[in-house]
């Protein structure tokens, strides 16, 4: 056990080994292995139903895996809720459908978890929230409600809300897929900035421009498994597998 831990590079903040996840009789993830170093930016892509969303939803245990191991920052995800909570504090997540709290204003959305989970006082939480809303350039809307904002604005609020917990890793689950085309860029720009700041990121996305610009590694998934892993340049220029070539042909046109 100890040896095994030592063979892993100590900078691996996410380690996934032989991960299996089933929904009833459907196997969504079949023996997936993945490791992410601190500060690394990973883009996960693949056709729909390939298991990419399921994979990142397993990383903060929104989905429970059936077998295999997931170790986040040294803590293994099991049924022990205390470990799960510890991991969730350090892992921020941005959803396809934003999932902002509609009854709370933008700034309250950002303050809730820092106050309840991190124990920040209201003024401290407010200051942090405004700071991060400024970072995603939406602080002038702080007192509005999510329903009054455009999709792109809502997604930037969702990013700020996750950042308010000062996570060590950010997970993005198709953050631009529910957006009107003209709003995709404002969200991608925010994500690029975040990547420049050195945040460890795992992004499920079809935005290949984003992948080229910031990803250290592209993970291509199909039918519940990782088919190909490469740096973006190699992946886009010379994909090794026929399945990846087929996928790229489809999304580039």
């Amino acid at each position, binding site marked *: 056990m100890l040896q095994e831990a030592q063979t892993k590079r100590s900078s691996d903040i996410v380690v996934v080994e032989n991960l299996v996840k089933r929904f009833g009789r459907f196997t969504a993830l079949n023996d997936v292995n993945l490791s992410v170093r601190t500060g690394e930016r990973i883009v996960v892509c693949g056709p729909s139903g390939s298991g990419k969303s399921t994979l990142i939803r397993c990383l*903060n*245990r929104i989905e429970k895996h059936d077998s295999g191991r997931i170790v986040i920052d040294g803590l293994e995800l099991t049924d022990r809720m205390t470990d799960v909570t510890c991991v969730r504090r350090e892992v921020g997540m941005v959803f396809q459908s934003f999932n902002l*709290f509609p*009854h709370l204003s933008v700034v309250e959305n950002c303050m*809730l978890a820092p106050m309840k989970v991190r124990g920040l006082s209201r003024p401290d939480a407010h200051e942090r929230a405004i700071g991060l809303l400024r970072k995603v350039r939406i602080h002038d809307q702080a007192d509005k*409600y999510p329903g009054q904002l455009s999709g792109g604005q809502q997604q930037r609020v969702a990013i700020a809300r*996750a950042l308010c*917990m000062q996570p060590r890793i950010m997970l993005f689950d198709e953050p631009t897929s529910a957006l009107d085309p003209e709003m995709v860029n404002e969200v991608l720009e925010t994500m690029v900035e975040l990547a420049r700041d050195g945040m460890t990121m795992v992004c499920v996305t079809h935005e290949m421009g984003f992948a080229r610009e910031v990803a250290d590694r592209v993970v291509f998934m199909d039918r519940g498994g990782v088919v190909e892993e490469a740096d973006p340049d190699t992946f886009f220029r010379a994909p090794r597998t026929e399945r990846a070539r087929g996928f790229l042909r489809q999304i580039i046109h």
Partner: protein
Amino acid sequence: MNSLDFSIVLQAWPYLWSGLLFSLALTAAAFVIGMSLGTCFALVQHFELPVIGRVVRGYIALIRSIPLILVLFWFFFLVPIVLGHLGGSGRPIPIGATWTAFITFGLFEAAYYSEIIRVGLRAVNRGQFEACQALALSTFDTYRCVILPQVLRVASPIILSQTIILFQDTSLVYVLSLTDLLGAASKLAQLNGRLVEMYLVVAVVYLGISSAASQCVASLRKRYAIAGTHR
């Protein structure tokens, strides 16, 4: 009886007023007990707790299938006997008509409020729960700060109409010889023979209070509506 004489109402007003106050107090108590207990019942079912979930479901099915007036009777006559047996003396321990009314109405309404909240809980988008998980919020904070506030906003019109029904149902306490607004009016009507005036006035009071409550909630809803939602 050929002409209406409302001067009688003026004399009767103090008695009617005390009846009205009792109706309002009973409504308020039943609302508080019913909503708190009903929310707990709804959550127990929502969490699908193994044994207690079934018990609660059975309780709600039972309560909803018998008339309130029967529950009042049972509670008034049976609970003192049960209490007596539990106490060991075997002699009934009376709990009094007022307490019977407050507790019974609370327990009865809990079943109805619980159904409203249970449906409301199901209407909350799954993404809301996932967002709370992702932010590491505890189950308690998830429900208290995120889920229940949304449920109560969505369900408030139905909760209100249930409460108006409750307010009108308080007249059933006549079976316990308690005097609510309608009870007060009908007693006076029997005494002075002015049935039409008395029942007209009572109808107007019920109408006034119920529609004022509707108006009040409508304006509250406007103020606290979740801004910009189209759900």
